[in-house]
């Protein structure tokens, strides 16, 4: 541990305090409370009474079942669709058709869904699928003979299907784009050509050759999706069943219950959720390894025919439908935001108005202001930290790469509800609760991982020789860093920043729990308004939620071009 590498240790300490410590403190407090120690309630002794209480609470088993089914189901289906979508993009042998013209635009089409917060998509989907939703209005009364909204549970159904659909709509673009990026590291076209020349069809070759090489590269993002699906609260609130709800939502309700004695079983439930998630990740990995072994047997048999035509047919329809539903969810929000009156069963609003948007411009809501401030601060700080960490690693040795991965993924792999409550208590003790800075810090915990993830590959891919040439020409290392590294990496840096903005806008629980009602946000506002009757106002907030990240992305994509033009 030489003194000259002090920046490295400084960075490590900064990251440890900034990221690791809050998560650990939060978890610690939650574990304490789960085992009976909550001084605020006068409980000082270690006991299992919280767990006893938890198992006596109604609906626990149903909640567990719901969480598992929707969590695994959504992750599995999104993964399969993403792999199928990637196979389609790389299928160069199909003759020109309408769909093949869409291929270059796939990323552009998926970005709005990717950028929109989970809550916005959930609200939009609810507005789309509800008995009085847009789909029902489009097909009534000429197809369905409905003059009034039917008494069907299309949203918040008891099996969690609409929750699964919402999750799939949001996670498919994420996994698809992550796969497409990862596939650039594999020589896909030549390997596929080889397999096809040996008689394998494109689909079979894809499954036997490409997928096994791709999966290890997307393993961690898949885990992130699985963890989110099991622990989401905002999506469960909009789309999941109400009674009994998924475990994560039930836990949040117990935390917020007027009966403060429920804080203890709520903490126990958080730990249970954490254990559930860890067990699920393990189970998933075991299932994957088993699948790999089974596939080896199938590969040895040399079977080349695809008996999968029904399967492929289902996927070919499911994929575009999922994407279209995602885009429609955003569109319906836009429609409602400019509606004055829209009675069932009209296909479009009966009268239009810009009223709510005008109100927005004259009285900029606090939610918008706060969301923007927190987003800009947290993404700016996250980007600075990420760049500093990467630069320090470059200059002082990168042996700590594996450690970095843990820092990056820890806040994403521990369920939010498991440590945010404990973190709130910790902040309360320090007198920090309810301030903008603390909320920004809480957002940073989640923004930093995504910023790092999106930056790391481009950073490491930068040809070191540019810097060596500059150094040999006598430039100082600061000059090299700024003028060469940063300007060459401008595009990935701006994209990482835009992703940070999107993640921050999307945060629900951190603002809710750490903000203590003093810091508002678009997402919290939208979710609480969505349970009310005015869909027009919800439309505005929902759309705003989606527009802010979209603007950030557009800025990130356009600025490098403007800079290039100026030169």
């Amino acid at each position: 541990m030489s003194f000259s590498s002090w920046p490295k240790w400084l960075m490590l300490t900064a990251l440890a305090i900034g990221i690791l410590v809050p998560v650990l403190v939060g978890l610690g407090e939650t574990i304490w409370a789960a085992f009976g120690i909550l001084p605020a309630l006068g409980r000082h002794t270690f006991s299992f009474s919280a767990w006893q209480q938890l198992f006596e609470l109604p609906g626990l088993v149903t909640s567990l079942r719901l969480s598992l089914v929707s969590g695994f189901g959504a992750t599995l289906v999104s993964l399969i669709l993403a792999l199928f979508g990637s196979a389609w993009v790389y299928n160069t042998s199909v003759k020109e058709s309408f769909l093949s013209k869409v291929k270059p635009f796939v990323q552009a089409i998926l970005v709005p869904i990717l950028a929109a917060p989970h809550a916005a998509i959930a609200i939009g989907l609810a507005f789309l699928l509800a008995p009085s939703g847009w789909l029902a209005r489009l097909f009534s009364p000429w197809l369905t003979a409905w003059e009034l909204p039917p008494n069907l549970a299309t949203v918040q159904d008891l099996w969690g299907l609409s929750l699964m659909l919402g999750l799939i709509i949001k996670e498919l673009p994420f996994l698809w784009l992550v796969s497409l990026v990862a596939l650039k590291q594999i020589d896909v076209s030549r390997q596929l050509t080889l397999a096809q020349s040996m008689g394998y069809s494109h689909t079979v070759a894809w499954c036997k050759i490409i997928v096994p090489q791709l999966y290890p590269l997307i393993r961690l993002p898949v885990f992130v999706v699985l963890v989110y699906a099991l622990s989401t609260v905002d999506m469960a609130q909009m789309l999941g069943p109400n009674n009994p709800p998924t475990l994560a939502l039930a836990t949040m309700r117990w935390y917020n219950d007027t009966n403060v004695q429920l804080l203890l079983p709520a903490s126990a439930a958080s730990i249970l959720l954490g254990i559930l998630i860890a067990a699920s990740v393990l189970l998933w990995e075991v299932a994957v390894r088993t699948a790999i072994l089974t596939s080896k047997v199938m590969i040895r048999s040399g079977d080349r025919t695809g008996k999968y035509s029904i399967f492929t047919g289902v996927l070919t329809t499911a994929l575009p439908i999922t994407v279209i539903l995602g885009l429609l969810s955003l569109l319906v929000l836009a429609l409602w935001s400019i509606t004055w009156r829209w009675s069932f069963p009209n296909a479009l609003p009966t009268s239009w108005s810009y009223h709510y948007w005008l109100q927005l411009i004259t009285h900029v809501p606090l939610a918008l202001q706060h969301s923007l401030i927190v987003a800009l601060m947290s993404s700016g700080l996250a980007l600075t930290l990420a760049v500093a960490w990467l630069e320090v690693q470059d200059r002082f040795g990168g042996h700590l790469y594996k450690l970095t991965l843990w820092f990056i993924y820890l806040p994403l792999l521990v369920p939010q509800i498991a440590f945010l409550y404990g973190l709130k208590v910790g902040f309360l003790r320090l007198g920090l609760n309810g301030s903008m800075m603390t909320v920004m810090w809480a957002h940073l915990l989640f923004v930093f991982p995504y910023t790092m993830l999106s930056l790391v590959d481009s950073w490491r891919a930068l040809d070191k020789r540019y810097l060596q040439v500059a150094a040999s020409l006598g430039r100082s290392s600061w000059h090299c860093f700024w003028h060469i590294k940063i300007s060459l990496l401008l595009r990935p840096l701006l994209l990482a920043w835009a992703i940070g903005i999107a993640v921050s806008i999307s945060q629900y629980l951190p603002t809710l729990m750490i903000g203590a009602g003093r810091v508002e946000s678009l997402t919290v506002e939208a979710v609480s308004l969505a349970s009310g009757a005015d869909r027009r106002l919800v439309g505005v907030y929902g759309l705003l939620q989606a527009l802010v990240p979209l603007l950030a992305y557009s800025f990130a994509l356009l600025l490098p071009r403007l800079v290039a033009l100026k030169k």
Partner: protein
Amino acid sequence: MSLELRSLSATTEGINLFSPVDLAVAKGEVACVMGPSGVGKSTLLNAIGGHLSTHFGVTGDVLLNGQKVTHKPVAERQIGILFQDPLLFPHLTVGDNLAFGLSSNVIGAKNRRAQIEQALEQAQLQDFYHRNPATLSGGQQSRIALMRALLAQPQVLLLDEPFSKLDLDLRHTMREFLFAQAKLRLIPMLLATHDPAEANAANGPLVILKPA
């Protein structure tokens, strides 16, 4: 099994990339395609194999045993290809790579294993079934890649400068091995190369590719 090319050329936006090729290769013969870099040797092989990207079109015909296969999909043509890099699938062992290639005409786990072991013997890599491909040397990988392509029982084998990354001695050994396999399995081969020594040693029909 014979390969015939009749006025075959690849086109992009209606214009030929190279002057049309006429060639006949009998079973067991090794034909060579030569030409300067960038003239389109790989594109020609892609056109024959059927794996041209959709930017390109094909004029002329490819005939296998007298049957036109010019517009058949790759998986149905039974035309094998070997690239410059061995491209052994990294997630499979050496033996499983060969098993992947082994034609589905060979039924039964025991039969299949026996054929794979035989192929390993021919390549002089007897105990390599469970080895990780990344641990093999360049020459060993090339041999396995060749055996994999041959185990698929193709009607024709195309080779796109397959030995250019090996050193001279190794290249010579691999070449002899290749010609021996061609005669043994009685399949026509088409070798794209810029090495005149290879063309000489092949002692078969020669095509010199010229720009259009």
